[in-house]
């Protein structure tokens, strides 16, 4: 059959264009995580709206990690510059969404994060059924087992990290409570006049200068 005829060329061009458009999209998309479960699309839009024009927000649903992980989202900005601005701002200053003090994290998006991505045109996938008698079959077996092991390792690490996060949260919560208590105490003495009386007794000036 004739090669690269008009209709085939048209499809090919279409595919290439779609792929190029996708790559461009990736460049201007920000990956956001450490997001609270209460956060939804409008919240993110307003949150990142201050950095530029938010074109689209999509959450990456968790299908395979057996833990309660914070939400992740892909935020598509209007251009690459805005995306870069988001990332650098959030890197230098803690940006909090719908709660404190845990900040959200922004990273540049990668193609693998998009579930509905187009495949690169002109790519040929090779596939092979390996015979049991072929020595590569044993290698295949080892690799398969390795996959399982690696998955378990990753899960274990995630579990560990989640536990550490809990610890940190707890610790901060304690810290916050004690701080608040101290603050309240001070507030109280100031308000009910005890501080003023003590100041008079000791001859200390409580004024603000």
């Amino acid at each position: 059959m004739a090669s690269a005829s008009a209709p085939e060329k048209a499809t090919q061009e279409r595919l290439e264009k779609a792929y190029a458009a996708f790559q461009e999209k990736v460049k201007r998309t920000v990956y956001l995580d450490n997001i609270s479960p209460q956060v939804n699309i409008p919240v993110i839009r307003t949150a990142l709206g201050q950095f530029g024009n938010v074109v689209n927000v999509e959450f990456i649903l968790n299908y395979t990690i057996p833990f309660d992980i914070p939400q992740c989202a892909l935020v598509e900005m209007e251009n690459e510059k805005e995306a870069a601005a988001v990332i650098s701002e959030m890197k230098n200053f803690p940006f909090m969404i719908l709660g404190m003090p845990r900040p959200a994290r922004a990273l540049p998006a990668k193609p693998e994060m998009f579930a509905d991505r187009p495949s690169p045109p002109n790519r040929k996938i090779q596939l092979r059924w390996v015979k049991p008698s072929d020595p590569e079959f044993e290698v295949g077996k080892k690799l398969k087992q390795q996959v399982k092991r690696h998955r378990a390792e990753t899960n274990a690490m995630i579990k560990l990290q989640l536990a550490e996060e809990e610890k940190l949260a707890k610790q901060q919560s304690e810290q916050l409570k004690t701080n608040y208590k101290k603050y309240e105490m001070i507030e109280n003495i100031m308000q009910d006049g005890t501080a003023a009386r003590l100041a008079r007794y000791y001859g200390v000036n409580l004024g603000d200068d």
Partner: protein
Amino acid sequence: MSQLVKLGNDGLSFHWGKKRGIGGTNKSAQFYESFTFDNVEYCLYDCVYLFKKGEDDAYIGKIVKIWEQSDHKRVKILWFFRPCEIQNYLGDYSPLEKEIFLASGEGVGLTNVNPLEAIAGKCHVVCTSADKRNLQPSSTDVELADYIFYRVFDVGNYTISDVLADTVAGIEVEFLLNQRKDLKSASGSKGDANGIFTGQKDAFDDLHGHFKSASPKSLENRDNPATAIGSLPINGGNEGNYDVEKPKHSTEDLANPTLTDERPSEKRRLIDEASSGASQKDKVDSCLRKRKVEHGEKELKRAKLSHETFQKTSLACSVQNDEKADSQNLEVIQRPYADRSKWFKGLPWDLKIKKAHEVGTLVLLDNVDPSYTSSDIEDIIYNAFNLSCTAKVIPHSMFQDPNYGEAYVIFKARDMADLVVRKINSGCLMQENGRPLVCSKGLLKVPAPSKSSTSSFTGHLVIDKVRLQMQRDEMRKAVSTSHCSQPNTIEYEMALEWMLAQEKSAASLNLLNKVHDDEIRKVRRSFKA
């Protein structure tokens, strides 16, 4: 001549055309030359589509007899074969675009009698044979035709030939070739074909070249089924098992098609709508319109046909292949109906996988090359197993190991899913770079994302007393908006602690992933040694 407009069960209008004669057993059969069904006129020797109950296939045939007997309307159909149905007898030849083969000879699969209501629509088939008796079509005719044929398939000795016998199925061959009324350019140019069987190949190359440069909209999506059909014979070892199964299957089907009234009436209407513009010019315009408007439908239908034929034999064959399991290289070609955008969106994906899991058709693939996309996976499954499925690649967040990709795949039936799991796990299906596919059935248990507004988030702290104070709107807004924290607040310091923790986690995950990568390479290298 009764011009009664009879309404059939499904409200489709019908009336007879010109009578021909009486005959048959007990002289109870009345033969006709034409009839009008659902506002489309069908004449003797017209080509039609027929749908078989329960299949998305469309068979193409030529009406060679029309009659009514004891209140049953019947047609005798002389069949055309699609290239995929007689694949094994084509040999090295790859069939032309739109080519079909007229049945000839004696035997099962030549003709069948069917109820008239089984006809699903008209089909425009042009004969491009260089035979003297054939009215030569112009290139426009060929372009506009739904199908072309110039060769016959003998159902008795399973051979293909371009020699047209004098009679086929008891009918003079002249009636089976192009009729004047069918061709736009019926100029009786018989002079060209002086038995140029030798020159025939050249003529067809020209025509073929012409097809390719024809309007993209009509052919663009046909390419897929054509290439799929053409290149499948390349598949090394698998073919052996197909030999016996296919033709028997297709001729058996043809012998007893229980073609009933049931067919997707939507598709019919679309085809009819286009061909009901009686006059020739209208026909041309409407053919073009038909293509523009519903090439998606047709492409689906036609592609489904070629797919379905494979699917029927695939299950039987792949079981036989178990033992053989040659190290065959499969070059993954795009499966026939690859344009996903045309698919009906349906349920959201997470509901889909839940449902599929309940029915047992869900499979999780692991160790997929992370650069593969959902349609790549569907192609892979199609090429390795000849099964269609819907796949979705699991998108990566920062938690996922970038060395591996995963995907959920939903099959149409439970046994397909089981078969695939069994084969992949017992065998070794290697992707490029030595990645064996791993799979398991079912759904990974993942905690449902808690959407309630009261659920707390680790790290988001609230002081109870302050919360009570936040009845006032302003206070509420202060926390419920998002902001960059300023360095003179407590939250700033706490936030920094969090950022530190985040960096640590990211670094450790990165390290783990690198270790994994090294381990993978090590195993692969050990093979090369």
